[in-house]
């Protein structure tokens, strides 16, 4: 997996590449928009991490140019601007995710993992161990037993199962399920996870929903070992 980091602040570019490289990714760094566009042209990247405040051109302009290409990788925007407008504008311009500085590195890593998973075909049926979820009929069974879930519980479980073995932060879950970015909502995630656990985990010895310290939650089955968390 090859990632392009477009960031003019040397310190930030340094720790991003060091961290991502130790996570097993190949990382290139571009210090300005022009270089970034040249590199995107020359190399196929699986993901671009794009800072909006670039010395030579606006990050949005870079994003637009990347998006005009026939095939373009997912783009994760980093920005020091956290106004909702900026965020909406970024996502509308074609970014796949938006992270406000200062961010937690684990949060970035979790998002990178989910973005890299994108593009793979999404099955109609998700199966983790003996837990299965039917996306079309919106039915959940475990060990052949029918489980009734509220709509939000279903969405969270679907999101966790799609990203099996990948930790998801509370913020990511809120953004995905509620379509919003409310800091105050992150507590609600814990409440929903508790409900989910009582419905799908309580009666079975194999506890699938795991708490990942410092990030959020991950779903996996003991039948198949999880990916390394960090």
């Amino acid at each position, binding site marked *: 997996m090859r990632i392009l980091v477009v960031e*003019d602040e040397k310190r*930030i570019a340094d720790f991003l590449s060091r961290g991502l490289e130790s996570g097993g990714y190949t990382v290139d760094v571009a210090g300005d928009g022009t270089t970034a566009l040249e590199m995107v042209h020359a190399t196929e990247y699986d993901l671009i991490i794009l800072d909006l405040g670039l010395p030579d051109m606006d990050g949005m302009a870079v994003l637009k140019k990347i998006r005009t290409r026939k095939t373009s990788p997912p783009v994760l925007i980093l920005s020091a601007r956290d106004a909702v407008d900026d965020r909406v504008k970024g996502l509308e311009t074609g970014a796949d995710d938006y992270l406000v500085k200062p961010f937690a590195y684990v949060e970035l890593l979790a998002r990178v993992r989910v973005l890299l998973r994108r593009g793979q075909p999404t099955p109609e049926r998700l199966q983790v161990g003996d837990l299965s979820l039917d996306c079309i009929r919106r039915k959940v069974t475990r060990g052949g037993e029918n489980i009734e879930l509220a709509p939000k519980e279903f969405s969270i479980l679907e999101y966790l199962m799609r990203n099996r073995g990948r930790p998801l932060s509370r913020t990511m879950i809120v953004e995905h399920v509620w379509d919003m970015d409310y800091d105050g909502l992150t507590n609600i995630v814990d409440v929903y996870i508790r409900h989910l656990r009582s419905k799908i985990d309580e009666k079975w010895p194999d506890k699938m929903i795991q708490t990942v310290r410092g990030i959020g939650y991950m779903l996996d089955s003991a039948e198949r070992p999880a990916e390394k968390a960090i």
Partner: protein
Amino acid sequence: MRSLRRWKPEAQNPTSRTGFLRSLRFRLTLSYVLFFSVLLIGIGLLFQKTLQLGMDDDSRAALEEEWGAAKGYLHIEGGKPVWIADPTDPEEAYIVERLRHVYILADYNGKVLEHSQTYDSIGIDSPQEIGRILNLPMPEIHVRRDAEGVPYMIKAGYVRGDKGHPYFFALGRSIQGNERTVANFTKNYFLILPGLIFVAGLLGWALAGRAIRPLNLVAATAQEITGSNLSLRIPRRNANDELDNLIDAFNRMTVRLSESFDQIRQFSTDVSHELRTPLTAIRGQLEVALFTAEKPDQFRDAMVNALEDVEKLSSIVRALLLLSQAESGQLVLQKTRLDLGEVVADVVDQFQIPADEKNVKLTATLEPGWMANADRTQVERMISNLLSNALKYTPKGGKVHVSVHRDPEEGWIRLEVEDNGVGIPAENLPHIFDRFYRVRNAQTNYTQGLGLGLSFVSWIVSAHDGAIQVESKPGAGSRFIVRLPAAMALRESASEPATTTV
């Protein structure tokens, strides 16, 4: 731009907030009513007087005619009055009868020869009065009242008898009708006056309301203006009157407010951006070290880097604090008489080591004796900001030159900092004194710095009533020129220019 048609109830009626009696509308109406009352009363009195005078004139003319007629009919023969009238002519008899209704005839001693009954009621003239009137060259007209208060206009004079003796003769005519007409006019006029004043009041109220409506509109718009809708404008009436002036002034004020709001908004965006960047670096470096570092050296590196960023963060906070103190007027300048050349020499000394390290030649031409009333700390800060700026943008082997000398204009000192570094592109020149503005180009891509130094320099210069300008050519270098007012005694010692190459 959005025109305002909707009025808020509380803004529509200003009396609800100002008190009815204090409201402009009420006071305008009151002045209007007072003015009309005085005017109408004055007009009434004038009419009354004119009417009275006119009617008196008519009565007087009639009396004169009667006087002449009476003189024609009256003969005095042997001290006895004889009225010559054709007894067969009833009209003539009637005229004489009428003439004799109010009359008196007396000899020059005051002895009454004949008088009418009515005249008795008016009062027989005294012999002195008769004597006085007989001595007048012309008859006299006056007004007297009878016992019942009926007014009579009386013409008194003399007639000659058959022997040429003068006799006192007075003829009168009731003018009660005149008085009644004037009194009726006065009564009727003052009866309808309150009604007129009331109508004037209503009219005044309506006019005042009309005049004040645009004011209320201004008030209503002002009410609606908050930090988030400063684009609101009051539509002009295009009457080019005082109210349009008010509306224009108000709109211009809103524009200025909007501009300063934008500046503040931009500033807080900039500040948050400037603080977030080092914070991100600190957090990320420490986290990545925590998750990935294996050897103590890697932890050490991360901590050293993080500490450097913390230092950068605190210098941003310090500079921001200083700038906000300066701009809010909390930073008080402690001005003393300073030898500008000396101060510059000190600062240039301090910059020799960093200049040597960067292999930049730092020189100075300083004329001593240029005195200025200035705050030493701030002037030093100004010079060091200019110098560090020049060093930052001058590559290895470059030159930075500082000079203090006389300005072509009398009473000014000139401080120049010149370098042959990268220069500033023309499009960036107008912004270099803005906060957080940094000229970014290929050579200085990863440069540090806050973008606050020059804005602080600019503040210090203007706080000393000076001026700063910059000349620059990309690739050839920049020259900052600071002009400061010289202290009163221009030069204390007129020594030769000394080139100090330190």
